[in-house]
């Protein structure tokens, strides 16, 4: 069943946010599929099928997490850096200076890099590694949005996020992946 293969890895990661072990996460995913098959007749098509499947998954995972008496505060999933600026503030003129908030030195312009060097397998690995270091909810939002191409509405319904939270999580995730990409491409451009 293609859907199981497509959604499986994401479902496992999302379940793992709420429960204590990989084995329990696998059980949650299996229970979710059972729930999907049982409920399929009642699926109204008001959301996309994959969003609906994730709602079932997240409900089961949260219930299981409560059963394990595992309290997972939102902040520990989302990361404690959501209020941080997307760019190092020292790159901009201070508030007391003329042209406050404008660039002191211009950012690295990597548009001149040849595509075969900038977009190669090593670059993709660097991006994948950067995503792995993100707090779990930031990582899952950028995976679903930018890797798998889900809409913001699908992602916030699937992961039970507010519109603002979804947007901030994606912004923060992209800011850090961009930073990692810049570090990687600096090395590439100097090689």
């Amino acid at each position: 069943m293609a859907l199981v293969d497509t959604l499986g890895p994401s479902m496992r990661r999302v379940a793992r946010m709420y429960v204590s072990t990989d084995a329990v996460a696998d059980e949650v995913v299996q229970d979710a599929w059972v729930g999907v098959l049982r409920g399929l007749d009642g699926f109204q098509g008001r959301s996309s099928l994959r969003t609906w499947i994730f709602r079932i998954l997240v409900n089961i995972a949260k219930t299981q997490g409560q059963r394990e008496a595992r309290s997972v505060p939102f902040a520990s999933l989302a990361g404690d850096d959501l209020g941080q600026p997307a760019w190092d503030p020292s790159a901009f003129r201070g508030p007391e200076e003329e042209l406050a908030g404008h660039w002191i030195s211009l950012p690295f312009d990597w548009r001149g890099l040849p595509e075969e060097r900038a977009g190669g397998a090593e670059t993709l690995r660097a991006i994948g590694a950067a995503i792995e270091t993100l707090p779990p909810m930031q990582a899952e939002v950028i995976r679903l949005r930018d890797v798998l191409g889900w809409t913001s509405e699908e992602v916030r319904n699937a992961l039970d996020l507010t519109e603002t939270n979804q947007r901030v999580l994606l912004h923060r995730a992209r800011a850090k992946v961009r930073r990692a990409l810049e570090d990687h491409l600096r090395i590439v451009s100097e090689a």
Partner: protein
Amino acid sequence: MSVTDELACSEIVELVNGYLDGELPEDLRAAVEAHMARCDGCDAVLAQFRATVRLTGALTEEHLTPAQRDTLREAFRGWRAGP
């Protein structure tokens, strides 16, 4: 002149993703575009985020499954330790 004409580069970088995703209200979108047209730094930042989104979109599940590798590693350790 509205207040959005006065956006600084440090504010533009916080709006770039909303701009890329088409989520900004019209006045902010126009202000960001006007700023980009005269600011090489912010234009480079826009290009960076655009490239970030595009390259992230080129990832496949093999770049994204540390958990499965961990499971393999555990299986390997278990195998070495013997029954």
